[in-house]
């Protein structure tokens, strides 16, 4: 049908037709409200405040990133069955940290009473606590509870001397390596930075000579994202650097800072053990290279283990090991990650919320989590549980990795600081700035922030 015919037909539409379409529109509007009622619901509800008597039925909302392994719903179902008076609803959020953050800050800025309990990235407690969005947990943290979890699980959530969050599962940067290639070239797992470079070079030369032109010795994350700063910190700490000076200001424009940046730069341009595309690779991008068997070493977070060991997508399943980051003269430090649990400062039911948190951080909840989703638990009793070990053979290397870690500082403007440093590091890695200039630019940007 041509356009002329369209026009002809519209012209012939009478007032009756207009009426007909309006009625359709009206009924649709009515149907809208019905559909809404069937599916969605409204968020905040009115209710009592103050202390809640023990036999009063209470509804809590727990906001966490969507759990594809289905473990969180299992944990919550178990809790709900055992606690009829405290029913928890799971509100799954985006798995991308930044998007989840957007949802949370919108809610907390509006002083919403839900979610009552929520997962927090390890770098958020400083900011959230400063904003008054997290409830201090000191009154809830009994000594028996603190003894059950690893110490770092508690210290990670501390800001200005108070506790605001407790780690729910760990993560730490680590070096993945090919066990078969180390054997083939008769080399050990590198413990120092120079060992890493030498081993990677040796394996790379050997594999390329054997015909694999796509092989690279060392893959790491070079894109302008948070992980770039974390890797810088890992080398910086490994070289003996301290992030905070005596007056608690961030200072990294020093020898170790420049050496750390130089090390990263050299892997690409000098030693050539890392591909030239490294400054464009984000966290998920480098995993396929190792899965295809084209990498000797990879620095990444804990999630990669499962992907590398999955025979459906990895050619090297079962040939992967993980070790802590190397340092200058001895084993270095991985940057900690993972997620914590915290309580909404405006929650109506702090006591019940703590009970739920205790369950998720307790032995039963953590065991379900470790066996179901492979996340690293924060309790030694769970970590040493033979059933958990059987479900996660990779956990064997965990104690070593977790022992050699350092945490990013809890600052009230951490994301701002990181956002100021990342571009300078990226400039170094893409040859836009020299190492010295780049590190100085990063320092200047951070200093400028403190004075704003």
């Amino acid at each position: 049908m041509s356009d002329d015919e369209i026009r002809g037909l519209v012209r012939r539409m009478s007032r009756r037709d207009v009426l007909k379409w309006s009625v359709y529109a009206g009924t649709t509007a009515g149907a809208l409200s019905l559909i809404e009622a069937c599916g969605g619901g409204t968020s905040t509800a009115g209710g009592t405040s103050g202390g809640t008597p023990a036999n009063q039925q209470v509804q809590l909302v727990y906001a966490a990133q969507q759990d594809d392994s289905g473990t969180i719903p299992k944990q919550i179902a178990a809790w709900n069955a055992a606690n009829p008076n405290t029913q928890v609803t799971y509100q799954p959020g985006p798995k991308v940290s930044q998007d989840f953050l957007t949802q949370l800050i919108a809610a907390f800025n509006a002083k919403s009473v839900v979610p009552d309990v929520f997962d927090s990235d390890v770098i958020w407690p400083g900011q959230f606590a400063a904003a008054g969005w997290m409830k201090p947990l000191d009154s809830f943290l009994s000594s028996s509870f603190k003894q059950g979890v690893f110490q770092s699980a508690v210290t990670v959530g501390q800001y200005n001397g108070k506790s605001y969050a407790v780690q729910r599962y760990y993560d730490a940067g680590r070096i993945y390596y090919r066990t078969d290639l180390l054997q083939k070239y008769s080399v050990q797992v590198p413990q120092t930075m120079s060992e890493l470079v030498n081993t990677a070079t040796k394996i790379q030369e050997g594999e390329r000579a054997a015909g694999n032109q796509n092989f690279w010795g060392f893959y790491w994350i070079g894109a302008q994202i948070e992980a770039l700063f974390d890797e810088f910190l890992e080398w910086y700490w490994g070289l003996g650097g301290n992030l905070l000076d005596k007056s608690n200001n961030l200072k990294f424009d020093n020898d170790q800072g420049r050496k750390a940046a130089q090390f990263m730069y050299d892997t690409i341009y000098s030693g050539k053990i890392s591909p030239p595309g490294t400054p464009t690779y984000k966290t998920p991008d480098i995993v396929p290279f190792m899965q295809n068997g084209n990498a000797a070493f990879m620095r990444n977070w804990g999630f990669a283990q499962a992907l590398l060991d999955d025979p459906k997508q990895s050619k090297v399943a079962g040939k992967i090991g993980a070790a802590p980051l190397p340092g200058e003269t001895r084993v270095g430090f991985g940057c900690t990650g993972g997620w914590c649990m915290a309580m909404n400062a405006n929650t109506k039911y702090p006591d019940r919320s703590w009970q739920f948190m205790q369950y998720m951080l307790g032995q039963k909840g953590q065991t379900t989590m470790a066996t179901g989703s492979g996340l690293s638990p924060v309790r030694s009793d769970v970590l040493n549980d033979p059933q958990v070990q059987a479900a996660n053979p990779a956990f064997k290397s965990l104690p070593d990795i977790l022992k050699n870690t350092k945490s990013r500082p809890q600052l009230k403007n951490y994301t701002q600081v990181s956002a100021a440093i990342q571009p300078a590091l990226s400039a170094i890695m893409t040859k836009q700035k020299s190492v010295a200039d780049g590190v100085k630019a990063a320092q200047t940007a951070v200093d400028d922030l403190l004075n704003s």
Partner: protein
Amino acid sequence: MREEALRPALAATRARKRAAARLRPGRVGGRSAFYLMAIVFAVFSLFPMAWILLSSFMPLADLTAQPLVYLPHPPTLDNYRFALQQAPFARYYLNSTVCSLTATFACLVLAGFAGYAIARLRFRGKQYVLVGILMASFFPPITQLIPLYNLMNKFNLLNTYWALIIPYTFHTLPMAIWLLSAYLRDIPRDLEEAAMVDGTSRLGAFWRVIVPISAPGFITAGIIVFVYDWNEFLFALTFEPNAAMRTIPVGIALYQGQFTYPWGTISAATALAVVPLVLIILIFQRRLITGLTAGAVK
């Protein structure tokens, strides 16, 4: 009058052109060049979607193979199965449709009236009205996020369809008004006046004469506005945290892990989101005609 005189000449020209198109040898080269250009354009527009379609049928190993693999071997429906298992796609479709359709309809009504007034009525200061309306879109959406969220919260609209319908309607309104005022402008004034001479009111003339002639314009504006609303992400993410109220872009983004990007699943989800949308748009353009035939008297 001139048309009357021209008619025989026009008929002759048409006949001559048709004959010439068939016979002239140089024409063939020009024609194949044109077809080549058309093919290039079609490929240019389609290749990313084609790539996504191919990826959606690829097993995990093929997706990141070195060197590049074009055809899945063997093709698999796993990605689609996984995408549909993991998320209530039907519900996302419903939510997206309700919000986008309602917002588009409201926007077109408001923009139609305003665009008509600006295009065809005489009054002073049109430039200022147009720029003033456009000014509403000069601030980036992220700056409006928190204030609008607070507003929505105050009126208890969060997690409802209205939380999206209202912003969507007015976000696309400046663009729709500008588009419709352009389409409505160049229609000769005589047509309207001829209709009004019969005694029809101005608005009657609008409906009977103007809208039919500018129907392609309305349809195009409608498509543009609808697709814009359909693909909106930021407000949908923030104003509808409830899983049951998610729209398609948020739903697709949810497959993405914190550190993983499941290409297969996301390609399947994207295919599920885009292909039906395109088909619906193409069918809608025809349905509008058929639907009107059913209602048209005379």
